[in-house]
């Protein structure tokens, strides 16, 4: 892979497209991270302070605790899926465009 010229590399870094790309990447990551943290810490707080609500029954042989606990595992996986979907469909394209610019300049 050819090393980009310092000038063009600098231009890319300073370009609005690149800055937008980086800030978009981190807003998506940050939002998803905060959602995950909120769900997990929220769950721990409910476990610590309100065990009864998790022990409440949905049906005679099922407490809320079970679908909520397994639901968090599923939810965590779905979040990673959302990120992959976003990155494959939006991020990679923008990266490819910028990369072509760097390598062709």
């Amino acid at each position, binding site marked *: *892979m050819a*090393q*980009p010229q310092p000038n063009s*590399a*600098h231009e*890319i*870094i300073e370009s609005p497209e*690149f800055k937008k*790309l*980086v800030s978009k*990447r*981190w807003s*998506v*990551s*940050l939002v*998803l*991270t905060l959602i*995950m943290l909120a*769900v*997990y*810490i929220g*769950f*721990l*707080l409910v*476990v*610590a*302070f309100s*065990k009864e609500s*998790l*022990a409440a*029954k949905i*049906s*005679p*042989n*099922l*407490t809320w*605790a*079970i679908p909520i*606990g*397994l639901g*968090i*595992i*599923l939810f*965590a*996986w779905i*979040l*990673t*899926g959302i*990120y*992959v979907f976003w*990155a*494959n469909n939006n991020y*990679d394209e923008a*990266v490819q465009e*910028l*990369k072509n610019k*760097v*390598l062709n300049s």
Partner: protein
Amino acid sequence: MLHHTLLLQATTTTTASTLGTANPISILMFFLFVAVTMYITYWAAKKTKTGSEFYAAGRSISGFQNGLALAGDYMSAASFLGIAGMVATKGYDGLIYSIGFLVGWPLIMFLIAEPLRNLGKYTFADVVAYRLRQRPIRIVSSIGSLLTISFYLIAQMVGAGGLIQTLFGLPYEVAVVVVGFVMTAYVLFGGMLATTWVQIIKAVLLLSGATVLVLLSLAKFGFSPANLFSSVTQQYGDAMLAPGGFISNPWDALSLGLALMLGTAGLPHILMRFYTVPDAKAARKSVFVATGFIGYFYLLTFLIGFAAMALVGKPTIEGIDKGGNMAALLLAEQTGGTAFLGFIAAVAFATILAVVAGLTLSGASSISHDLYVHVVKQGVSDEKGEIKVAKRATIALGILSILLGLVFKGQNVAFMVGLAFSIAASANFPALLMSIVWKKFTTQGAVWSILTGAVLSLVLIVLSPTIWVDILHNEEAIFPLKNPALVSMSSAFLVGIVVSLLQPEKSAALKFESEKLRTYLGVGAE
């Protein structure tokens, strides 16, 4: 800590089970596994010549394969047997642990995986040191890495000795030596390529074995989980299906939760796997695949635990091992007979081999790549010399892990996994994250952040109820939390930020801008 609490107090078995006697099927299965993996190692050895091949399998592993291998690295025998056992004896509380172990994965994806893949070469210290001064960063990063790996390794080796003794009737010492030799052979001759395929085979065996175990168990309940839960509540009461005494102090819960969650994102052997794929896109895919398989695995252990509680019964399980670690194996015997028990036991053995191989490889790369090349040789070393050192380090770590396994025989090492996660979350993770996202992060900031995280984790765990009360038998702990991560990790971030702000490093800030092309576009990535 539960994870790997394991097996330590495993006693000889009662007449009800064939556990502890040499089971021909498990011995056959185990030899088959070793034969197949040794053949793979032989094949991999021919393809392992360069540094990139030894440390990173020539970046030839696909996203899906790496996802399976990550899952293989993470699903230890202890989490299989330990979590199933915790559910079997305490009910729902076991799931709370599983959730903590799982939720770190999305964070690896969102914050770490792609920048790590683009910026680094073989170790996570590559990323931290990218725009900082090499020597000091390499020294402290390898301290963080090696501490994490050592504590994890001790827990695995001691667990392995006890487990194999119980399963195969082999003496503890023989078991530890066998594990040490076989895993050293994988790493020494086959490098990352062999280690990766060992992980993949182990992950497939473990996931399919656990799936069959769940199906055999559910068959006894007309394939209805509701019937299973009903049998549990009829025998042991409704309390089994809800959180019990596991979390009583919310600060304890938070501290342990942070250690499990963010420690995952600071485990050197996990981070190293991201260098085995060709690019950031594959790194991303591998986290998605790994999270799916690990999540599925925790669902299985949850059902296995309850099925063991209902079918084998709590008194029998606790009679054989207080921590419940034999629950899954007893269930396998009850539902699938001696042959199936042999299969599951062999899978558990294979699992231990794979996990210790991954740990040893990442320890060896920290010694050769970080310490030898960048500290001893000041960054100028030929590839041959580096691989030679890596191989010597592998042998040394193999011998060391056997010795540690023997020295800690019969000791309570269960806390060591919690400690490993705490150091990973406090020493490795904050410096790694700040080096990726924060322009003003400096060499001094990184050094003091890593040292603060490591030292506080070590000191506070000694003063915590985990060691001070449970092991040293003092009346009251000096530090109140069972896991120190809440304090040690926050301090590591704080120290890193304050030191960086007090003494700016102009060259590091300047380089931050130019490294962006590599971080975000992958331009110039190895």
